[in-house]
């Protein structure tokens, strides 16, 4: 297992380098930051000098090499948009995104699994039919619309929840949290629902179909024949066997939720990494874009590593196989 983890880590590093390489080959198409960085009075010579100073005139492989050299030393430069250190910006924005992503992952997993089990057990009831229909809405409705819809109902009409921002946050070291204040918690409700809704429906539909599959297998039939209670069969035998694909999906979804909360963050003016990235793209803020993409790639690498390791915990067969493998 240790060798396996090490191999994954080396592969992960390769992925990071590849992502940076592709990113730098594409930055040319995002545009030229210089025209955003100077006012309309700037002369042609001013622009040229700035581009030269920032090394923007160099061929992109050279820019890539310089970026990798600096990144290896943990140096990501200064944002062209804000004139602040990129590492500071990412560190500042990370808590907002992580809190949002983790809460919506918990929300979608807990409710997704529960509703999925319910819909699998009561296959034909009115309630589960309603749940299934609503889940179709969740899969097909764009996140943007869900967010705006929630804002109009709960912020404009009912005035119960704030329409934007994180509310008051409390600093714990460099981490800022909205979980400890009332306005912070209120601010989390709508973004979490919006971001988690798609994941929820996905997990629910997956659990339901896997459950239905498992209920048809031989071991469930034998368990019934042995007179084990239906509840115990459902929860201990069927559900456990549905978990492997669910963990895979939920894990990878957590990665994409952290990485691509962009739409939700934009709708709710959530000060996380997603909105940082959107602003960076519009400004052609190369240092921020590069660092953000590296960050996202690392998240995916780590999440898939953790998911792989979780298989060992959930599925006893994998454990025994690796033990057998050692014995040989």
């Amino acid at each position: 297992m240790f060798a396996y983890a090490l191999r994954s880590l080396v592969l992960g590093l390769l992925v990071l380098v590849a992502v940076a390489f592709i990113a730098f080959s594409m930055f040319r198409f995002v545009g030229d930051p210089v025209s955003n960085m100077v006012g309309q009075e700037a002369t042609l010579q001013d622009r040229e000098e700035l581009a030269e100073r920032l090394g923007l005139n160099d061929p992109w492989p050279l820019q890539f090499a310089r970026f990798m050299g600096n990144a290896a030393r943990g140096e990501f430069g200064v944002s062209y948009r804000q004139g602040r250190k990129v590492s500071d910006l990412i560190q500042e924005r990370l808590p907002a995104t992580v809190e949002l992503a983790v809460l919506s992952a918990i929300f979608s997993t807990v409710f997704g699994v529960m509703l999925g089990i319910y819909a699998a057990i009561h296959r034909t009831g009115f309630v589960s039919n309603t749940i299934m229909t609503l889940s179709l809405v969740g899969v097909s409705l764009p996140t943007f619309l869900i967010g705006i819809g929630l804002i109009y109902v709960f912020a404009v009409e009912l005035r119960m929840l704030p329409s934007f921002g994180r509310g008051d946050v409390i600093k714990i070291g460099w981490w800022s949290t909205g979980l400890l204040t009332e306005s912070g918690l209120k601010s989390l409700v709508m973004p979490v629902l919006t971001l988690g809704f798609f994941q929820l429906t996905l997990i629910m539909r997956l659990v339901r179909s896997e459950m239905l599959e498992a209920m048809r297998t031989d071991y469930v039939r034998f368990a019934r024949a042995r007179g084990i209670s239906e509840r115990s069969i459902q929860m201990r035998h069927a559900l456990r066997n549905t978990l492997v694909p669910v963990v895979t999906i939920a894990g990878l979804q957590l990665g994409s939720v952290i990485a691509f909360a962009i739409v939700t963050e934009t709708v709710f003016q959530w000060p996380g990494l997603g909105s940082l990235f959107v602003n960076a793209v519009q400004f052609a803020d190369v240092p921020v874009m590069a660092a953000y993409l590296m960050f996202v790639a690392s998240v995916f690498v780590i999440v898939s590593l953790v998911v792989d390791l979780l298989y060992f915990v959930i599925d006893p067969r994998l454990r025994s196989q690796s033990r057998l493998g050692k014995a040989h």
Partner: protein
Amino acid sequence: MKTFSKAFLAVLAVGTILASGVQAQTLKWARSGDSLTLDPHGQNEGPTTTLNNHIYEALTERDAAGKLGPALAVSWRVLPNDPSVWEFKLRPGVKFHDGTPLTADDVVFSYQRAMQPTSDFKGYLTSVADVTKVDDNTVQIKTKSPDPLLINATNSILIMSKAWAEKNNTTKAQDFKNKEENFAVRNANGTGPFVLVSREPDVKTVMKRNDAYWGKGEVPLQVTEIIYTPIKADATRVAALLSGEIDFVQDVPVQDIAKLKEDQKIRLNSGPENRTIFFGMNVGAADLKSDNVDGKNPFADKRVRQAMNMAVNRAAIQRVVMRGESIPTGVIMPPFVNGWTKELDAVPVGDVAAAKKLMADAGYPNGFSVTLHCPNDRYVNDEAICQAVVGMWAQIGIKVNLVSQSKSIHFPLVLKQPAETDLYMYGWGVPTFDSNYIFTFLYHTREGSLGSSNGTGYSNKELDKKIQSLNIETDTAKRNATIAEIWKVLKDDIVYIPIHNQTLAYAMKKNIDIPVDVSNTPKLKMVKFAN
């Protein structure tokens, strides 16, 4: 008895508060983008200068209508014996937020800082040779040659404290090549009506009233606290106003204006902005890259340009694309700029038949094809305007291939030398409120520091001479006559096809009334709360 005295004290306290009018009045302000930096010389960009103007001040300031008036300077003059020296008398008794007094040293320091290579305001001060202190309350600016218009740049150069900048190692304007953040990017010490309390970029900036403000008796200064929040998504920004979480929204999306006007709790003010939208044509190239005409440039023929100008139905663009929120124009200059006349602004009559005839006369009876470059995230409805003109030009046989893309890609096409576009959309504001600014950047031959935004290749040497003479002509009447002459030539030459002046819309709660500021830099020290 005890209860009575308590009640009495309470009444007394309330009475005192009401009498002195010191209720805490917080104003929550939102617009689509955040300021980029607090460094007063770091970025010459709309939201940045708007926010910085609440903390810092310049020698002069412009009111909502664009009229120049005194600020940190109480008076100024050109020295009678030397027309190349401007002298400013500073306002006595002004203090920075840290309590230190404003002196001539701070002004000299700030101008020198703004003239450094990394400053984004050096373009305003290219004519300046030297800035010197005469005494504690007097500063002289010497220009390389007489510069009658220098005064128009003084409202843009914000004054910071020399001692503060030296103490915090921020004597140079922010530099993107640095590895560390410049102290002035997130800290500020100005003389303005509001003091910075906290700043989280892209999240929230809090300012409180400067109770020691020099202009306390002259301006209302009723706002005690400003909470400034950028809200990027249009729908969310409007929702935040409707839900009462925001008091004042600066960038109201065009599609929401009608709805907000009907809302009883909302006040909507709209008015012209200092920005004209127009199309530029590559008239200078021998042959166009994107057209299907070989060996010659159709835009070089004035009749083609006339035809295209006539084919644009500005009234339709105003009505359909802009939903009434624009002012069609016949010249690339908003009305409050020196040199504007009604005749220049006359919108050409849309006449497709006459335009077709001009095309035929020019040798293009069947038209030609050409690529139009357009931004899609810079001006109000920019892409939709381009789509509209594509249809209008098709009527006279010009097949336009529309390419609309992000501002970061669009503007470099125009600003490269030579420009990499044959036909493009552009917008221009005139911060100096004088025609010379338009001539210098958009019409002068592109050479040296002149004509930097002229992507048309237009070059008229005789006109260039006249444009340059404006920089040194000190006789106002003579100067204005030259401006009129230049515009006459330009109106006839049609290098640019003017579309409209953009209008601005501000939405706010009913208890405040913030007029639309032509430079789009609203001044919250002027806000009064109605009861």
